[in-house]
């Protein structure tokens, strides 16, 4: 870790100061270690983690917003580099496993919501799957993201591919995943969130909201980084994640955002812990499937 911190300091000097607030927090890291926050007592309740840093809850939303605003345009390239292209397989598996869509002899169309899905790859993938496999052209999709820049990226992509742009079936909305205040309760059949829920300030609140917006019989489906069970592979994975911020600085000229991504993955709860959080929100038959030895995991829960 030490070598990374020093290289990070060097790169800070080199890289541009586009994202002022984030830089300020990097320098303030020494004072804001988790240990200090715990000693502070009453302050603890109003803080949360931002990567390995402990920040005020009001701040995290803004900080995450800055990370994604800065990576939005190079999001796909970076994902490919970071996961060696495997993220496409994960997402493909996710969509195939969900296997959603209105079946030909079924009566009602489905209502999807894809949270933190600004780039639109899961949302468009789900709709494409439903159309190709079940000739479903009725089901609707809400693409929701807290970050307007990411959402624009998705809209741009829809426009470029000439599908799902200005389509009455697909709506893009800037919404906080923890509240979803424009989404009615019990209005959705399928709630998906892929690589998004770890950026929530309060993950449990996000899960409770997922439970609120789903109809009885609806399903919560989540793709997220997780914990590797094999110790040997885990060592290799940790080494790999130390290299990622450096690659981020080379490809996207942005060390800190990728440092945050790596740290937020480390801080995210393990499979069993996250499963218990899903159950705590009220979901039944919760479970998970590990992908690539647990680098990633698909979690699900059913509202009955």
């Amino acid at each position, binding site marked *: 870790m030490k070598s990374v911190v020093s290289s990070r300091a060097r790169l800070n000097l080199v890289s541009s100061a586009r994202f002022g607030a984030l830089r300020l927090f990097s320098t303030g890291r020494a004072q804001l270690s988790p240990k200090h926050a715990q000693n502070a007592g009453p302050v603890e309740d109003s803080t949360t983690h931002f990567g390995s840093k402990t920040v005020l809850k009001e701040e995290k939303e803004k900080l995450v917003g800055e990370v994604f605003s800065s990576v939005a345009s190079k999001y796909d390239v970076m994902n490919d580099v970071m996961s060696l292209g495997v993220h496409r397989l994960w997402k493909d598996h996710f969509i195939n*496993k969900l296997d959603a869509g209105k079946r030909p002899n079924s009566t*009602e169309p489905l209502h999807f919501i894809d949270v933190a899905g600004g780039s639109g790859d899961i949302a468009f993938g789900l709709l494409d799957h439903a159309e190709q496999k079940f000739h479903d052209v009725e089901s609707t999709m809400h693409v929701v993201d807290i970050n307007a820049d990411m959402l624009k990226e998705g809209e741009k992509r829809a426009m470029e591919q000439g599908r799902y742009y200005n389509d009455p079936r697909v709506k893009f909305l800037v919404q906080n995943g923890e509240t979803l205040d424009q989404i009615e309760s019990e209005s959705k059949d399928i709630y998906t969130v892929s690589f998004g829920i770890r950026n929530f300030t309060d993950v449990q609140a996000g899960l409770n909201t997922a439970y609120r917006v789903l109809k009885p*019989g609806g399903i919560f489906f989540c793709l997220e980084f997780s914990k590797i069970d094999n110790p040997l592979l885990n060592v290799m994975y940790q080494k790999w994640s130390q290299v990622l911020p450096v690659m981020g600085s080379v490809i996207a000229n942005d060390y800190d955002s990728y440092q945050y991504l790596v740290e937020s993955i480390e801080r995210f709860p393990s499979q069993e812990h996250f499963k218990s959080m899903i159950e705590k929100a009220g979901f039944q*038959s919760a479970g998970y499937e590990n992908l690539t030895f647990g680098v990633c995991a698909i979690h699900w829960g059913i509202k009955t």
Partner: protein
Amino acid sequence: MLEHALPKIIKPLTYGTESLQFKVLSNALNKHVPQYGFNERALVQSLNELGLSSSYLSVLASSNSPSFFNVSPSVLELVKFHLVSRRKQLITNLPLGSDKPLPDLKTLFLERLRLNESIAPHLSQLLSIMSVPGEFLTSTALPELQQLTDDMIFYSNEQDHNDFAWYSKRIALSTAYVSSELFMAQDKSHNFVETMEFAESKLSKVSQLGNMYNNTEEYLWYTLLSSINLAKSQMTRG
């Protein structure tokens, strides 16, 4: 977690008899599979009947991994449900608490085959889904077959031995069961009389195999002991 705090689930399924999944699947299996077979059509008919949308197929599918070569995950769950629920059905009416004698192996074996009667026209489809190489075969189809033969031996008055015969007996019984199901898939006779005859002949071969096994074992022991005795007697003669 405490055992009594867990919801009552029927392992290896992830839901209990009160759950919506159970209702959908048992309704599909009893009413629609005999007509449509093991496919999504049967499931969607069942969902329509219960007033659920097709998103529920994803709910049913969630514990299975999609396979490129096999049917969709929700249909895999239907097959799994068929295997598990029929296996449980076999032992629900047994006099387990009382002093009454347990049925013999043949009764249980034929009883399990009779539970296939309603879906008999779709048995070849079922068997082909289960035999596609992949995760479903290794994590569901084979373990369920092993569980079934284990249950048949455990819940009948059949004697069980904790030696290598334990494995031999289960393997022989599994083979007999699978071949009987394959026979049933093609059987057009009234009330599956021919299947039952076939199964009985297979079972008698299993018990013949058991006799052969016992005889061989006895012969080997006899030979071993007599050779030791022969060696001993030669040694005392000097």
